C-alpha cells in the first residue's frame, strides 16, 4: 500500500489549518455525491496590495484520508501566498492527478502534495483528492476573484 505514505496519514490525522474561522470573504460547501465526502471551506483574502493574497483558508472536512490530506496540503501550501501562485499549485496538482501515473509532480510547485502522486492510478479517488481544491476555486469565484481559465 504505497498509496498511504507517511505524509498522507500525517496530514489526514492532523490536518493543517483545520477548523472554521471567522472573518472570511466566502464560504462554500462541497460534497462528493458518490461517496458522501463533504467539505465546508472559507477563504479570507487580503486585497490591500497589487494582487489578492490568501490571508486565511479555514475548513471542516469529513472524508477519507485522501480528501482530508489533500485539503490539509492545500491549506498548508496556500495560506499567506498570492492567489495567483496558489492557482499555479492547483494546475500542477491537477496535471499530476490526471496523468494516470506519468507525472510524479514537482515538489517545488506543489509541495507535500507530491505524496498524492499515487492517487493518479486510481481514477475513482482523483475526485477525493480534488474535493478541497474544487471547493477552494469555487470560494475564490464567489469572493469575486477571476479564476477563468483555471479549471482545466
Amino acid at each position, binding site marked *: 500500500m504505497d498509496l498511504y505514505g507517511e505524509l498522507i496519514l500525517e496530514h489526514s490525522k492532523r490536518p493543517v489549518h483545520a477548523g472554521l474561522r471567522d472573518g472570511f470573504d466566502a464560504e462554500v460547501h462541497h*460534497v462528493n*455525491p*458518490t*461517496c458522501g465526502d463533504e467539505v465546508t471551506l472559507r477563504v479570507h483574502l487580503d486585497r490591500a496590495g497589487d494582487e489578492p493574497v490568501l490571508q486565511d483558508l479555514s475548513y471542516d472536512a469529513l472524508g477519507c484520508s485522501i480528501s482530508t490530506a489533500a485539503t490539509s496540503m492545500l491549506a498548508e501550501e496556500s495560506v499567506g501566498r498570492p492567489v495567483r501562485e496558489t492557482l499555479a499549485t492547483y494546475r500542477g496538482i491537477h496535471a499530476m492527478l490526471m496523468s494516470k501515473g506519468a507525472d510524479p509532480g514537482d515538489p517545488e510547485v506543489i509541495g507535500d502534495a507530491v505524496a498524492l502522486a499515487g492517487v493518479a492510478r*486510481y*481514477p*475513482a*479517488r482523483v475526485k477525493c483528492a480534488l474535493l478541497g481544491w474544487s471547493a477552494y476555486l469555487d470560494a475564490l469565484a464567489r469572493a469575486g476573484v477571476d479564476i477563468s481559465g483555471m479549471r482545466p
Partner: protein
Amino acid sequence: MPALTAGESARIRADFPILSRTVRGGAPLVYLDSGATSQKPLAVLDAERDFYLRHNAAVHRGAHQLAEEATEAFEGARGRIARFVGAQPDEVVFTKNGTEAINLVAYAMSNAGAPGALDGADPEVARRLQVGPGDEIVVTEMEHHANLVPWQELCRRTGATLRWVGVTDDGYLEDPRSVIGPATKLVAFTHVSNVLGTVVDVADLVSAAREVGVLTLLDACQSVPHQPVDVTALDVDFLVFTGHKVLGPSGVGVLWARPELLAAMPPFLTGGSMIEIVHMERSTFAPPPQRFEAGVPVAAQAVGLAAACDYLDTVGMERVAAHDHALMGYTLEQLAQRPWVRVLGPSDPAHRVGAVAFTVEGVHPHDVGQVLDDQGIAVRTGHHCAWPLHRRLRVPASTRASFGVYTTTAEVDAFLVALDRVPQIFGVSA
C-alpha cells in the same frame, strides 16, 4: 462521393452473419426492414461481450479496479458517440431508446411546473422550459408516434395545446410559419420521415422557430443511420436518436441538448447516481448528464453503440449516404415503371433517405408484405407508427422497404421480382 463498390458491399455483409440465413423454407433472407431496426455487425456484438467478460461492474458506483474500468468504458463511449454527431460528451444523455429520450424532454418540461423544480436555474432558460395553458407545442403531421404522443400527453398534463404543420399530397411539410407563433414553446419535428423518407428542411423550421425565439427538438432516429449528422450545423436545441437503428444494440438511445438547457432542466427519472445530496425530506441533484441517468446505466449497450460509430466512421458516413442515395434512386426508378404501384412521398430521390413506402392498387399492404415475406423479402407493413400520416395520405396502411449500409442493388432486384407476383396472385391488373 461514390456509392459502395460490390467488393466493399460484400466485405460489409460478411460482418453481419444474420444476412446469410434463410427464411420460409429455404429462401435467402433479403432484409429490407432496417427502418424498423438495423442488424448488428460482429464488432458491435464483440464489444458488448468483451465489456461483460472483462470489465463488467456498476459504473460510477465503485472505486475498485473493475468499477474504474467499467466507468472508463462507459464514459469513453459517451465521448465517442458525442463525436459521432459533433457534440461534447457532457451534452449527451443515455436513455433506453429514442422514445425515452423524447419523453425525457416532455417530462422535464411538465416537471418544470412543480414547486421548486427550477430553483437555481437561469431564469431566462427556466422560462423557456415552462409550459401551461395558452402555450402551444408544435409537431408535424408526419411524425412517428414517438414524437407525437409524448407531446399530446405533455399537453394533457399541462393544459397546453398541440398544433401541427401539415403534409402535402406529395409528402413535404406545409409552411411552418402558419403554425409556429408567439404562443409556441417548442417545435418538435423529424429529420427524416420513417415512412416517406422525406428529408425535412431543418434550416427552415429552425429559422421559423428562431424568429419567435422558441425551442426546437429534432427526431434524428431516421437520419443518423444514413447520413452525417452534426448538431452544431443543424442548430437545433435538442436532438434524439436511437442505438438499434444505427447498427447498435437495443436498449440504448441518445438525447443531445444544449448545455444550458440540460443545466436548467429538472430531472425526469430519479433514483441512484443522479443525486447530489439525499435526505428523507428532500434531495438535490447532480449536474448533467448524470442528473438524467438514474439507476445503473446501460453501460454495455453504450459500449456497443460506440463500436457501431467506429464501424460506420470506418466506412465513412459520406459514403453511407452515397450508398443510400444510389439504392433510393434505383428503387424509385424501378417502381416508377410499375403503374400499379403508388409510391408515397417525394418522387425526387434527392429529397429522400432510407425508406420507400408504397401501396398496390386493389391489394391490402398486409397482403403485399405477406407475398414478399413468403419469398424471403422482409419488409414492414402497416402504419409504421405514423398513423396520422397514413390518414392524411388517404391510405389505411402501406408496405415499406427500407435500407441499411449492408443493403445491395441485388436485394432491391430480388424485392422487385417478388413484388411482381402480387398482381397475379390477387388478380389485379399489372
